């Protein structure tokens, strides 16, 4: 029996080697090793680092951190490679573990998949206890699987609705001031209607359509609608009955009805140029928006669909490649990256809530009374990825190796709902496809 399955496996791997060379390396290479802990190495020499290319300011912050690390000591030299954000995750998926760098960045929800594929090593032995102790609880829990930590983040994330105070006041729209008095979905619709009356082209909302909805943005940005309606992307390893509840369906119907208010925002300037009064997006637009609007910028929570307002949580994090031969040096670089100077520089660059305790406490933006206090308040009420109650706010996307399928199917459904398909039909279809995929993969149990 085992020889037959080995034969199949060999055939399949050879097939991959010819058809999809990179994929084959990942599949066959990953299976070969059982031990995922990296070699600690000498702690000296050159290490490679991969990061995603995001906003210019973020890239500059990473580059500056690498440069100052290289000049601060002479034992370790870091070589940084920036890879375009859109293809970043795909690049890691398609790269053999032995080709991966010593230190790599990854998007939070993809971590479980990389652990499952044996591409990430636990970092506990290589990162100093000081760094680990200084990480926020949210950052630590995002990076933890089975009691081991695989990643630590420099920053967390949050969603909100940015408002243009001048336009809101002109239309006589009253807006919430904290998470506790968030708009209900109906109030949000009413606000859109009132704003539309005062708007020359009738478009008053931006949902960053330019990022695409059949993408990670779709899942991150709009899964809170499902959570806020009491639904869930995945419950106890099943999507059917969690994703397609009547409440989720009706919530997404409401979302669908907002399309007529949405500016397609092809130039990315709809909110900054006062064309729309509301922008449904994350913390990362704060630097751009605050520069454009100054004191007219207000930050509101996402609307409440019945189960309390919800937001996404979790962001890019750093980990150590499973095949690193110099994990000690990699850990030293991570310690440096997660110090107050670098975390503060990065969070200043992208407006994100810092993911270390000391940097968060010192943050001008997120402290009590700061302009982005709302995001900090949301993150202070974490739900995790399973217990989505009425009182918690920040929900982590499902921590499972099956996440690529979940996000692909949910994004697809969201995109077609936005395009006019019946939400019930689209969500049920996505749920069935997710469940099928999980059963094909034995529930994605991490071995």
């Amino acid at each position: 029996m085992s020889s037959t399955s080995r034969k199949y496996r060999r055939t399949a791997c050879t097939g991959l080697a010819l058809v999809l060379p990179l994929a084959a390396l990942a599949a066959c290479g990953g299976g070969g090793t059982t031990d995922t802990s990296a070699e600690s190495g000498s702690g000296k020499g050159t290490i490679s680092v991969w990061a995603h290319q995001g906003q210019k300011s973020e890239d500059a912050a990473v580059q500056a951190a690498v440069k100052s690390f290289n000049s601060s000591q002479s034992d370790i030299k870091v070589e940084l490679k920036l890879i375009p954000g859109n293809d970043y995750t795909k690049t890691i998926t398609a790269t053999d573990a032995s080709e991966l760098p010593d230190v790599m960045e990854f998007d939070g929800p993809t971590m479980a998949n990389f652990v499952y594929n044996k591409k990430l090593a636990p970092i506990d032995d290589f990162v100093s206890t000081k760094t680990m102790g200084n990480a926020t609880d949210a950052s630590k829990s995002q990076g933890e699987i089975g009691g081991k930590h695989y990643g630590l983040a420099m920053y967390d994330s949050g969603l909100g609705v940015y408002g243009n105070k001048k336009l809101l006041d002109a239309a006589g729209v009253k807006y919430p001031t904290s998470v506790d008095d968030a708009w209900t979905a109906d109030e949000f619709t009413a606000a859109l209607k009132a704003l539309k009356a005062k708007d020359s082209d009738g478009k008053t909302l931006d949902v960053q359509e330019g990022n695409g909805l059949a993408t990670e943005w779709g899942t991150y940005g709009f899964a809170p609608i499902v959570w806020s309606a009491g639904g869930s992307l995945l419950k106890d390893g099943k999507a059917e009955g969690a994703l397609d509840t009547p409440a989720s369906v009706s919530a997404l119907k409401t979302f669908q009805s907002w399309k007529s208010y949405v500016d397609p925002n092809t130039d990315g300037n709809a909110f900054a140029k006062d064309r729309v009064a509301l922008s449904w997006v994350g913390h990362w637009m704060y630097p751009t928006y605050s520069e454009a609007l100054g004191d007219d910028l207000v930050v509101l929570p996402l609307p409440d669909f019945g189960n309390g307002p919800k937001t996404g949580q979790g962001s890019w994090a750093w980990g150590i490649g499973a095949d690193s031969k110099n994990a000690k040096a990699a850990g030293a670089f991570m310690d440096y990256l997660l110090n107050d100077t670098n975390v503060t520089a990065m969070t200043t660059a992208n407006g994100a809530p810092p993911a270390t305790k000391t940097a968060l406490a010192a943050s001008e933006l997120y402290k009590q009374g700061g302009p982005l206090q709302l995001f900090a308040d949301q993150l202070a009420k974490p739900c995790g990825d399973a217990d989505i109650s009425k009182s918690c706010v920040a929900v982590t996307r499902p921590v499972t190796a099956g996440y690529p399928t979940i996000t692909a199917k949910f994004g697809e459904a969201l995109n077609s709902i936005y395009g006019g398909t019946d939400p019930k039909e689209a969500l049920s279809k996505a749920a069935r496809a997710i469940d099928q995929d999980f059963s094909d993969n034995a529930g994605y149990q991490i071995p």
Partner: protein
Amino acid sequence: MKSVEPAHAAPPAREQAPPVTDVKPARPARPGRRNRDWLHGLLMSTPAVAGLIAFVGIPFCYAVVLSVHNVRLGSPLEPTFFGLEQYRRLFTDPDMSGPFLRSLLNNLTFAVVVVPVQTGLALGLAILLNRKLKAIGVFRSLFFMPVVFPMALVAVIWRLILARSDQGMLNSALDAVSFGNWGAFDWLGDSATAMASIIVLSIWQGVGFQMVILLAGLQQIPGELYEAAELDRAGRWQQFRHVTLPGIRGTLVFVVMLTSVLSFRVFDQVYVLVKGGGLNEDATRTVMYQAVTTAFDQNNVGQAAAITVVFFLIVVALTLIQRRVVRPDNED
């Protein structure tokens, strides 16, 4: 090593030959000659055949192998034998077969529209540009220009043109032309126009290539033929029908074939526009798009392989039929 053995074996055979030499001249020399032609033919086609086997034959066979297994990109689970399950899902599972059959239909629609329209347009442009005008080179380069741009870039630019609401260039142009009576229209988001938009942008990008090939064909037609036709009092249309068309028949057939093959490959524009948001995915999803996203977004290599196998067979069948129908004359 094996190839050496016959060489060793040959000399003894010749040594044995002398007793029979008398018989040999009696045999005509032709069969030997023909034999060698066959050998030379085989030798010369070897590089092409080897390439075909290495880049089409073997990948196809392995795609078939992959498609009957449950293979996941980068999964620690061993691939398991799946039989025809992937094919069953593609054709009978309503959730999977719906998008797949729709994407097949979209591909066909695209090909059926693009092949005649793009070829016709390319022919028209080629005739237009096959004149002795001043600075004709400039015009030719202008019309050829879109071909030089990568499709991904073209798609990004057309996103600005086709954007919904009055921010879109097409909508604002129509608004200006109709004195403000044109309401903003969602070209990419509306299922009625999404595919049409893709078709228009693809033709715009690709037509220059076919045009250049046809232009070369047109310039092969000797000018005397037109002079003779003129002497016979043939009008413009008659000249076109009886001189131009027969003159470029071979080129035209080649262009039609090429356009059909290229039009089955449509992927980039759909991929870029969907990622940019606002594109109606169901109305524009093509088989290539479906295969690539299944393999690389959902890591489902087995399913993607099954999609490509089915698609390969369909395209091969269609190409064979097409070759039958528009076979070029024996003149070449």
